[in-house]
């Protein structure tokens, strides 16, 4: 909105020329989102407490987590608000990719909200059924895949390290987008089990994809790095900037001991957003590396369930993986900070693929 209001005035007031630059508007989105989530946080947490929107803790989880029962949940609404408002404020609203990623984030947010709302209303850890949840996610993800094909997005799959290898998926692109988005959103959901863990990792991933979308949208840099050039996708880095700011602002209140949890409304929408941005930047495969923590957490659950069903034995003391380390004696904050360090290392490896081929 600011871009449309202020940039046309640049001929009279030269200062407004800065609104032309994506980097400036991404920085503006970071600061605005941080201030929004940071300033609204205390009021938001008080409101959730007043409405008795408290987290129900799984009885099968670690015993130490039972003291967290009653901590306000659905903090993801604050993340969503603090991401979407700065995006609408700073991004070029004539850009279709911005609208697509905004709609995907909001769509996944609606699915998560319904799940959280039912959990709170029923007073147990039972929200939407697994089938209802996955159908909602598939619907939103399919809408993105279809929308991309309709706007003429090249349905091609690119690979890190093998930059000349391109696989054209055609109509299979829609199920591919569904697999990516549903996979990431559920993986972030599984990761969201310790204070600050999921928001820290998604904020780092958002920062990485801010770089990737900026590069993919810049003909010169994309050409130099032999990456797929996607005209207009650089604008999505403004959205990533808003995600970074909102994430940091939320982490302020979500760090141990958390004053608020993001809930499914936060984890599903953040996962959907990261998946959507990866699709737009044509760096879906790389998401397995940048979001490696989410992959590990999801794999630990899959391995645990498969092993228990096939052999009757558990591979981990508890799944997802963060609980395994807790039960091994690591403190919650140790698990969180160590998992963040792993995420940062994986992200650095991901960024290195820009140069390696």
């Amino acid at each position: 909105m600011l871009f449309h209001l202020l940039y046309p005035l640049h001929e009279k007031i030269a200062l407004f020329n800065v609104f032309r630059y994506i980097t400036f508007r991404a920085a503006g989105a970071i600061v605005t989102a941080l201030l929004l989530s940071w300033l609204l946080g205390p009021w938001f947490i008080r409101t959730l407490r007043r409405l008795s929107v408290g987290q129900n803790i799984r009885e099968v989880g670690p015993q130490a987590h039972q003291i967290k029962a009653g901590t306000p949940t659905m903090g993801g609404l604050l993340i969503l608000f603090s991401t979407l408002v700065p995006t609408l404020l700073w991004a070029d609203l004539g850009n279709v990719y911005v609208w697509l990623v905004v709609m995907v984030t909001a769509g996944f947010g609606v699915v998560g909200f319904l799940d959280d709302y039912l959990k709170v209303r029923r007073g147990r850890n039972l929200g939407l059924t697994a089938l209802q949840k996955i159908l909602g996610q598939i619907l939103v993800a399919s809408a993105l895949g279809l929308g991309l094909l309709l706007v003429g997005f090249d349905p091609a799959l690119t690979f890190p390290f093998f930059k000349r290898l391109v696989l054209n998926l055609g109509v299979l692109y829609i199920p591919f987008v569904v697999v990516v988005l549903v996979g990431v959103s559920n993986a972030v959901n599984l990761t969201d089990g310790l204070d600050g863990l999921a928001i820290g990792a998604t904020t780092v991933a958002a920062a990485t994809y801010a770089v990737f979308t900026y590069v993919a949208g810049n003909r010169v840099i994309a050409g130099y790095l032999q990456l797929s050039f996607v005209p207009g996708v650089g604008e999505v880095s403004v959205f990533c900037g808003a995600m970074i700011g909102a994430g940091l602002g939320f982490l302020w209140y979500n760090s141990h001991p958390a004053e608020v949890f993001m809930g499914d409304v936060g984890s599903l929408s953040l996962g959907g957003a990261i998946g959507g941005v990866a699709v737009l930047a044509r760096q879906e495969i790389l998401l397995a590396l940048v979001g490696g923590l989410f992959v590990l957490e999801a794999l630990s659950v899959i391995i645990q369930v498969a092993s228990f069903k096939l052999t009757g034995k558990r591979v981990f003391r508890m799944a997802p993986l963060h609980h395994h380390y807790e039960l091994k004696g690591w403190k919650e904050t140790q698990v969180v900070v160590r998992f963040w360090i792993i995420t940062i290392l994986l992200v650095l490896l991901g960024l290195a693929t820009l140069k390696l081929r």
Partner: protein
Amino acid sequence: MSPENQMKKRSTQASGETHVSATNVMATPNAYVRFWIITVMLVLFGLATLKLR
């Protein structure tokens, strides 16, 4: 309190600033994560000077 002792009052409960936060209301992890967030924002402002002149 005598005027001399009034002069000896501490401006903060402890120093450095991390201990002030920890001795007030924040738990230790809260304090360090919040200080990291402030550091990240300061770094981002620092990086912004590359572009702004």
